């Protein structure tokens, strides 16, 4: 089965608002794309449109949160982490307000809209902000788990969601740990460990099965259980990270930061080079910019050959 993580977000939130009347959902004229329209359908009095004014939406979210509300604010990742970066930093993260920024259409899988709408640097931006938790759910079940979790916390969070359908890597009864590496395949080859997040995880899992590698899905990029991660990493000679994000500042950087400080070993990545994307079918764009199962296999093979 497969589903867009944005749809899983809207469906989960539509369930939560029925019982949690403190939740207020904000959108910036993209409700049908971000799927917060599913909330509007069931509980219209808990959904407010802020119009095409994302910075203002983040400020309104902050004010609502400062008045006791649990606020979900949605727009495209480009206009949340990008356009409204400073409002998120100064009005939400600095005062540590209860706002969940659920940003859809992250990464190149936006497809046809092209580079202006393809946020490839949002994990880097949000990860660098103090007080901000950053979640990158990889399928519909992980998304539901993340949304249910953040609704119970009182702190700011950034949840990165996608436009395109992603294959399930979990099931409805899977035990999903948001902060630890979720090992989805144990391989006998201990030379390379695959650590993946978001849309790439379904591909990384296929590679792990094919090449007899261990693969773990990382959902929370900050903060994460560094001890659990370090313990996992120490059993492997090398690491390959996979993410639909720039190679600068995302999962690759975060893993390198951890590994450099604890047990230095070669780390390589499947990520977007320091470049903008372009228009095209999501599948074609991902292929052109190096985000496919074949690209993962290629990098793993290269690492095995080199070391």
């Amino acid at each position, binding site marked *: 089965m497969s589903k867009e993580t944005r749809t899983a977000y809207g469906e989960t939130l539509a369930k939560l608002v029925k019982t949690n009347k403190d939740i207020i959902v904000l959108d910036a004229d993209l409700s049908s794309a971000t799927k917060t329209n599913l909330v509007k359908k069931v509980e219209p009095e808990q959904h*407010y449109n802020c119009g095409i004014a994302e910075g203002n939406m983040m400020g309104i979210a902050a*004010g609502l949160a400062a008045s006791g509300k649990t606020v979900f604010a949605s727009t495209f990742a480009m206009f949340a982490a990008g356009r409204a970066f400073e409002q998120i930093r100064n009005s939400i993260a600095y005062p540590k307000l209860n706002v969940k920024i659920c940003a859809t259409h992250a990464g190149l899988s936006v497809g046809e809209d092209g580079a202006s709408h393809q946020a490839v640097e949002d994990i880097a931006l949000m990860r660098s902000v103090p007080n901000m938790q950053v979640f990158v759910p990889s399928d519909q079940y992980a998304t539901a788990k993340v949304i249910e979790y953040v609704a119970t916390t009182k702190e700011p969070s950034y949840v990165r969601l996608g436009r395109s359908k992603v294959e399930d890597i979990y099931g409805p009864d899977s035990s999903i740990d948001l902060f630890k590496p979720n090992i989805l395949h144990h391989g006998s080859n201990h030379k390379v460990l695959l650590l993946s997040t978001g849309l790439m995880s379904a591909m990384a899992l296929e590679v792990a099965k094919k090449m007899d590698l261990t693969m773990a899905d990382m959902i929370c990029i900050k903060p994460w259980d560094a001890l659990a991660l370090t313990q996992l990493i120490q059993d492997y000679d090398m690491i390959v990270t996979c993410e639909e994000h720039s190679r600068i500042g995302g999962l690759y950087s975060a893993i390198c930061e951890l590994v450099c400080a604890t047990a230095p070993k070669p780390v390589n990545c499947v990520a977007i080079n320091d470049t903008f994307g372009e228009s095209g079918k999501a599948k074609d764009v991902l292929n052109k910019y190096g985000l496919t199962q074949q690209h993962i296999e290629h990098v793993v093979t290269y690492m095995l050959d080199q070391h």
Partner: protein
Amino acid sequence: MNNQKLAIHALNQRRTIVEMVHAAASGHPGGSLSATDILAMLYFEVMDITADNVKTIDRDRFVLSKGHASPALYAVLCEKGFLDHDQLVNGFRQIDTDFQGHPNMNEVDGVDMSTGSLGQGLSAAVGMALANKIDHKPYRVYALIGDGESEEGQIWEAAMAAAHYQLDNLCVIVDYNHLQIDGNVDEVIGPSPLDAKFKAFGFHVETVDGHDFDQLRAAFHQARLIKHQPTAIIAKTTKGKGVSFMEDNPSWHGSAPNDEQFEIAMRDLEGNHE
């Protein structure tokens, strides 16, 4: 409260502002002094804020969108008895204290929103007013913005949203002191006519002398009576009000008086009310 008592509070607040900025050798006296009479009116007459409810959200709230005027906010909170005067004067802008250069809501009771980056506080005030509407709470939200701050586009995004959601529980006050860091607002990037702009954005607008308590009182009273519309009070003020050498001089936007200037300022603020 009668005007004479308000004037005494305002004078005390002005002295605290000058003391803080002098002790820190840093801060923004000009725009703090221009806003002081507005804050005295709000905190001593208009808002229902007391020592008993200051830590709660179930009261009228104030957002200092022009967060660099933190001395004005700290000074009125001090005058209300919520803050210790000596701790404030010695702690303002110093390491390991709660009195940040721009106010932090998590460190000082009575600071209702963390502000400092211009243009953002009004949006938060819109969110607070919306929350009161959602919860059918009777409390009002006041936001003070600068005239220079109205150059930020986000102010107008917030204004559009406030009118759209008919937030008649929101009152924006513009501290129209005509000066910003680089000079006269009309020379930097003219915001005029502010009253017509707010009217066009769907606000009820009152224009007053921001140092005249009778006019301020009448405007805040009128704002309460207006239904289905937010109110903007354009308060014409003098930057540096009360300190002879600071008045109408943009160089006192963000600089502190030296010891000699401090003595002159404190003499200017001795007053004859007491």
